[in-house]
């Protein structure tokens, strides 16, 4: 449904939204600086007129915050958002009123977003009153009937005087859509619009949204954690991780030919309905880190399967991934020498290496001899000097000198991924923020990277 000549309707430039920037009482007493949550951090996004732009990601990645920024329910901490060529943080009163009419939002939960004491007619008419549209009661009533018919609540007369509690979930969400549509907007942000609805009802609401897009000439932003819905609905998709947009492009390309390792893992993790479908499990370790204190460099690097070895690394990428993990564990006091050597058959430094190098991965991604959180280091082609460093660190751990152990590994095994936050670059039809892709070329450049 993309128009042939894409014209941007919304342009987001380097937008950040920080929460918790004010000092709390305890912070003030203890003289601490506030540590804000960087919910959205340096996002660039262009939404073309007539498109459905999907925003996907796990919970806490900032997708809802970004949606609210777009409709001015939050003010951006940094950066600018332009709607139809105008910066939305700098609007005059009349411009703001116009903006409020042209931009609408549909919320997740139709059980909460409708006022239980207002009838359908009152709810849907309210935006007309606020925006001062329509000549008198009868005209407004006609408009309400028209829009209710459009959203599939026909005959409208049967619904006008109902209260939300008398409607089913699907009907309520249709009322919420009608409320957004009645002021004839250009741009609608839909935040998980069908996640509260049952499967058999959901398809109807989704199809309705697609039909209305044609009829009313709308541009949507469709926010969802459900990747199959994103695939079904959206022309273009942006994938978010910890406040960053890490990949965006045409939806089918993003799904079938993902560039960023996180995108790949995300889509691998979706179960398929066909019981015979061959599916890969997601090749990532650990969980999403705390957004108050995100990792340096690329935010995904601690979990990434494709972390790039430094120049001059003599071993394989798989070996480096595990060595890097060892280093992170030492630096975060996550490698407990007592626990590693307890029940271990081998010499104690070996035991620490065996534990520290092992990754917790689904079976298909782990190496042979990597099971129950232990790996035989000899199956990895560790370069001799790397192994020496690791053994030194393990010795220090055994002696209980954690600081010395940290000093051993601190300046070793440096990946570009932890040093530099990758700028957005083109990769095929997508743009992605990943060091695997050269700033200009689209081919993987790192040594030892497999598909």
């Amino acid at each position: 449904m993309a128009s042939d000549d894409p014209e941007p309707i919304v342009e987001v430039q380097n937008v950040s939204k920080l929460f918790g920037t004010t000092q709390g009482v305890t912070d003030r007493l203890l003289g601490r600086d506030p540590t804000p949550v960087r919910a959205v951090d340096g996002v660039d996004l262009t939404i073309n007129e007539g498109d459905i732009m999907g925003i996907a990601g796990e919970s806490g990645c900032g997708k809802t915050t970004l949606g609210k920024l777009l409709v001015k329910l939050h003010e951006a901490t940094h950066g600018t958002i332009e709607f139809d060529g105008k910066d939305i943080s700098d609007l005059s009163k009349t411009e703001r009123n116009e903006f409020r009419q042209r931009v609408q939002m549909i919320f997740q939960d139709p059980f909460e977003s409708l006022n239980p004491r207002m009838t359908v007619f009152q709810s849907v008419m309210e935006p007309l009153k606020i925006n001062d549209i329509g000549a008198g009661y009868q005209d407004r009533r006609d408009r309400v009937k028209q829009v209710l018919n459009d959203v599939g609540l026909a005959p409208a007369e049967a619904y006008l005087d109902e209260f939300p509690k008398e409607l089913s979930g699907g009907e309520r969400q249709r009322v919420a859509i009608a409320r957004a549509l009645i002021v004839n907007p250009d741009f609608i942000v839909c935040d998980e619009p069908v996640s509260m609805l049952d499967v058999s009802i959901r398809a109807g609401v989704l199809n309705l949204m697609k039909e209305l897009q044609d009829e009313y000439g709308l541009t949507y932003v469709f926010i969802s954690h459900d990747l199959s819905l994103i695939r079904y609905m959206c022309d273009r998709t942006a994938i978010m991780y910890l406040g960053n947009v890490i990949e965006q492009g045409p939806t089918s390309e993003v799904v079938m030919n993902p560039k960023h390792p996180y995108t790949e893992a995300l889509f691998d993790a979706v179960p398929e309905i066909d019981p015979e479908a061959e599916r890969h499990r997601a090749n990532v370790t650990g969980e999403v880190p705390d957004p108050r204190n995100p990792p340096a460099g690329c935010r995904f690097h601690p979990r990434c399967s494709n972390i790039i070895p430094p120049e001059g690394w003599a071993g394989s990428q798989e070996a480096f991934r595990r060595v890097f993990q060892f280093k992170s564990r030492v630096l975060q006091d996550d490698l407990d020498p007592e626990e590693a050597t307890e029940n271990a058959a081998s010499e104690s430094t070996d035991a620490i290496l065996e534990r520290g190098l092992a990754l917790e991965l689904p079976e298909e991604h782990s190496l042979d001899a990597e099971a129950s959180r232990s790996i035989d280091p000899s199956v990895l082609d560790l370069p001799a000097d790397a192994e020496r460093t690791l053994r030194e660190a393990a010795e220090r751990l055994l002696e209980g000198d954690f600081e010395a152990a940290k000093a051993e590994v601190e300046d070793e095994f440096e990946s570009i991924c932890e040093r530099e936050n990758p700028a957005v670059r083109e990769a095929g039809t997508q743009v992605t923020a990943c060091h695997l892709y050269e700033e200009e070329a689209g081919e993987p450049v790192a040594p030892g990277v497999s598909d």
Partner: protein
Amino acid sequence: MTLLEVNDLSIRYDTGDAEVHAIDGVTFSIDRGETYGLVGESGCGKTTLAKSIIHLLDHNGFIESGEVWFDGTLPHWEDENGDPRREIVEDDRYPVRDDGMTDLAQLDTEQIRDIRWRNIALIPQSAMNALNPVYKVGDQIVEAVLRHEPHTPEDEAHQRARDLLERVGIEPDRADDYAHEYSGGMKQRAVIAMAMACNPDMLIADEPTTALDVIIQDRILDELDELQKEFNVSILVVSHDISVMAEICDQLAVMYGGKIMESGPKTEVFQQSANPYTLGLKNSFPTVKDEQTDLVSIPGSPPTLLDPDDECRFLDRCPFAVEECRSSHPPMYDVSAGEESRRVTAENPQIHRSACYRVDELETMRTEASKEETWQATTQNR
């Protein structure tokens, strides 16, 4: 070997003026080591059905009729091999059958407590909130162990808690942490570890991954799969997510309006779907990687189940309804006989069954159901 056999079970909720027929004449059975899925939309009775097995219904819910035979019995009815003693089996006052199965539906509140956790453990729907915030996670596991195996020395119970946590991928030392110190995925793992504490024969997993993100969900499903292989435990999974079910189940029952509409081995239910409701459901479910087709929703909305009429529960939304559907809700028919255009009631609950009078017209229904107009026609008629 059959572990659980549910016969003609009906469950009601008393609402004062009327009764909600949450479950109506449901029959199914689960083998040892099998994963059995109950799938359906909200309000179809899937959670009620799963919880009724171990008497965890809300205060106004009760078993109206039916039997829940389980291969396992109360500790003080057992002999040294864990089978019920001869005199218990022969005495009619005890709900124990000749083959040693016990009818859980007839146990009283005190008795069922010995079955819960020891024989059948529950992984609750909001596992995120299932942990007690003021006790250490490890202590909560120890509590369960000591309740059911009171002779276990305390340090042994603590060691077991640590081993269980380690088994599901949590550092044993985290046993001394509180629930709020765990991430969402870890809480879910801890609850699974807790359910395994007394080495049960069956787990009831109520929406085990619903609140989790896909990547964590992926790992939890992997974890359940491994546990099952290792301990040969049966799992009864309740979920609304068809794709999760497609992935983990061996057997599957599709529920609607308190009835099982279709059940059988997973691949048959998905690939040779025979019930109009299943066919409609498949039309309305998007896939990520397969070819994209237009989704078609099932018109109308699910029934309320307040003193329902005797007609087929799906009648109002079904494009294939005929006069016979008004007479009563159809019994479960054998689908393989249906493929040969015969209508035979299914005796074995493990085979592919469908509750539809037109089971002998499968070809026509399947072709018609794949067309969008078929489903739209129903909307316009109404």
